[in-house]
């Protein structure tokens, strides 16, 4: 029940208008809708989705790492001059985002994983990761943190409001003005979708037809980020109008320049998928089985954080009263441990399938070693999403309901520490567990690699925590980012090496 003092406080603190949530929701629906449509009606394979994710997130990680080191010194040196910062941002996007998109496409085409008629799906998938996942996800979380923090009242809410009213006053505009702002935000994401589609499309075709011209047409679209520092120089409608015009031009150029190719090789575009493993269904089955196999671990991984949340809520109140650290601030640091534990089911399925001879049949029927590994990793990612999703939603709601402060720091920790480290550690655990169990003598139960692998997955989380403690307040996110990127790269490398070098007989049962 709110006291009169709180009511007086609320009179001065405004909350952000919920209409701002509309922006990320629309973008997510748009991006996901495009993916769904292309998958159903045209062609968008799991490989296109996965490979584009690899290309995109590695590029974003590389950009973040580069900017972490160079942005502040450069900005200081040039005094924020947009003509200097423009090329800085633009060239990063050209070489890192577009460049990596091409390299991944080229590798995939050379290994017959992607074909010409995957070009559209690859471009749509790149757009999904940028707009539907990274930008919209980030925005949604940011708005949620602002909204809940400002709703909670108190000192933290006041501090948050003071900071936001200075940095982003438009968040407190009247609904009509806010809606206009949301509209331009959505327009910007639509432009980004078109541009990512264009360069993804051109990169695949450049790789398939070994046509350097397509790559040279794709690369310059990364220079759209050149315009980022010029935003304040234009009114919002004009700025977004320019971006949108360029986006339309990118699609027009991409389609027009390849039309001759698509006409000449039209059978490549309309060629039916060869009779082979339905990977989308296999991955779905792998996830369902992992969930069933590892249901005890899923429950442990989901319930333990919730119990921890209750403890946090109770102890946090007491600690805050005694001037101690708020446990809610360290909750995001502990969560990945439970998530890794909760995602063990996929690895258990791997061990069982090998022992039952399932892999022998799959290899005989044309499934590759890499696809066997990938289905386990995909199932692991699915379990992480489930466990993490439930844990985060319930715990954040519980903490907010308990009246504990949910600061921006906690939000940043969840976004840049908990989520990436959870996914990366679980994927790392899966891959290590699979490779290790293939290479060692088969032992049953908890002494097996499958039984010990969760400890392997938890170890990087704990190591990151220890390193983060010693790196200072600002360093924790870089430690988490670096550790996550390193683990994902290790997973990709291990899968590649295993596909090339691992003896197939290791997939046979001992029975």
């Amino acid at each position, binding site marked *: 029940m709110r006291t009169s003092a709180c009511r007086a406080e609320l009179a001065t603190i405004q909350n952000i208008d919920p209409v701002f949530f509309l922006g990320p929701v629309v973008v997510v629906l748009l991006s996901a809708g495009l993916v769904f449509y292309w998958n159903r009606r045209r062609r968008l394979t799991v490989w296109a989705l996965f490979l584009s994710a690899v290309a995109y997130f590695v590029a974003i990680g590389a950009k973040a790492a580069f900017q972490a080191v160079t942005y502040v010194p450069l900005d200081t040196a040039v005094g924020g001059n947009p003509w200097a910062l423009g090329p800085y941002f633009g060239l990063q996007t050209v070489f890192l985002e577009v460049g990596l998109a091409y390299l991944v496409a080229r590798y995939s085409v050379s290994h017959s994983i992607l074909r010409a008629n995957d070009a559209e799906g690859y471009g749509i998938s790149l757009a999904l990761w940028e707009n539907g996942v990274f930008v919209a996800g980030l925005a949604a979380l940011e708005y949620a943190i602002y909204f809940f923090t400002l709703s909670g009242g108190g000192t933290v809410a006041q501090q948050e409001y003071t900071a936001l009213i200075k940095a982003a006053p438009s968040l407190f505009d009247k609904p009509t003005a806010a809606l206009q702002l949301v509209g331009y935000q959505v327009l910007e994401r639509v432009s980004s979708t078109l541009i990512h589609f264009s360069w993804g499309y051109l990169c695949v075709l450049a790789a398939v037809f070994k046509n350097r011209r397509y790559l040279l047409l794709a690369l310059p679209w990364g220079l759209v980020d050149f315009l980022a520092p010029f935003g304040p120089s234009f009114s919002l409608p004009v700025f977004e109008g320019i971006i949108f015009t360029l986006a339309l031009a990118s699609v027009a150029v991409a389609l027009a320049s390849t039309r001759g190719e698509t006409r000449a090789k039209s059978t490549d575009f309309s060629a039916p998928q*060869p*009779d*082979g*493993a*339905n990977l989308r*269904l*296999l991955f779905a*089955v792998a996830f369902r*089985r992992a969930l*069933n*196999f590892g249901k005890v671990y899923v429950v442990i991984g989901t319930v333990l954080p919730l119990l921890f949340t209750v403890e946090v809520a109770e102890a946090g109140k007491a600690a805050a009263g005694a001037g101690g650290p708020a446990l809610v601030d360290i909750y995001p640091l502990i969560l990945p441990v439970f998530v890794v534990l909760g995602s063990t089911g996929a690895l258990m*399925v791997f061990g*069982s*399938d090998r022992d*039952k*001879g*399932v892999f*022998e*049949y*799959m*290899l*005989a*029927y*044309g*499934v*590759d070693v890499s696809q066997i590994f990938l289905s386990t990793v995909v199932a692991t990612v699915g379990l992480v999403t489930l466990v993490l999703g439930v844990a985060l939603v319930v715990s954040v709601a519980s903490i907010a309901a308990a009246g504990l402060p949910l600061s921006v720091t906690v939000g940043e920790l969840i976004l840049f520490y908990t989520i990436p480290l959870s996914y990366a550690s679980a994927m790392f655990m899966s891959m290590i567990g699979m490779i290790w169990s293939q290479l060692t003598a088969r032992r049953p139960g908890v002494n097996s690699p499958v039984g010990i692998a969760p400890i392997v997955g938890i170890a990087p989380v704990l190591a990151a925590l220890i390193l983060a403690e010693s790196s200072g307040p600002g360093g924790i996110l870089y430690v988490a980012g670096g550790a996550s990127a390193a683990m994902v790269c290790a997973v990709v490398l291990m899968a590649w090496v295993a596909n090339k070098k691992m*003896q*197939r*007989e290791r*997939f*046979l*049962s001992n*029975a």
Partner: protein
Amino acid sequence: MAPAPPILVQDVASGYYGKKVLDGISFEVSEPGVYVVLGPNGAGKTTLLRTLAGILRPYSGRVEINGIPSQEKEARMQIDYITHLDGIPEGMKVEDGLRFYADVEGGGEEDVRRVIKLLDLEELAKLRFTQLSQGQKKRVSVARIFLREKSVYLLDEPTSNLDPKVAKEIRELVLQLSKDKVVLYSSHNLFEAREIGSRVIAVKGGKLALFGRIDEIRTETYTVGVRPLELSPALGQGRKEGDYYLFDLRSPEDVPGLIASLTSSGVRIREVREMQNPLEELFK
């Protein structure tokens, strides 16, 4: 240009973890039919089938399926394969297991329904695989090969540990398949081999002992054992071995004549059985 043979094996060596199990194997399968892969335990039968299926990479030589190297996905997609393991993922029901493999092979629900009907699996479809008897499990395992039409079928002891009734059903299905497909059928049951196969691929000590038609394999004698209900002087023509009196004939076609002769002499016969199989000669 003549079409590529369904199976071409040229000077192939193969094995596990660098250790050769097969060496210098060469043969070509160019006609449909059942090719029985015979050999004692450890001869390399399973290794041969795994190499043909593309599961094992040969250390040397060439293996092609319809002209495509066996390691390539296109070759593996033309093969159907059964091993001695059931290979149904744990926890699955029968229809889920078949659906799983239909997905692996790029098939659909209609293939699963058709195969359930073909192998009379309706009553078993909703049961967990672990609830089935050995014979039922094998029937489900064999059902897998009928999900999608392939050009080459590699069956590794598909009737092992089965009762004679179920084994017979499976052999009949295989014979139907072999009318226009190539079926390699591994067995160490020499009687079964003669019943089902038209050609033999005999493996011994990792080498190819024989590749040819079964009916061309001849031995000097064909021995049958007669177990009588009671002793009779007419049995004196044979030599006694245990409960049986052994008679050496020229060929199996002489057996009815022997039985007729013995019964007309007053011998009451409990059992007649083959005491020597010409295929055994391959392994001496």
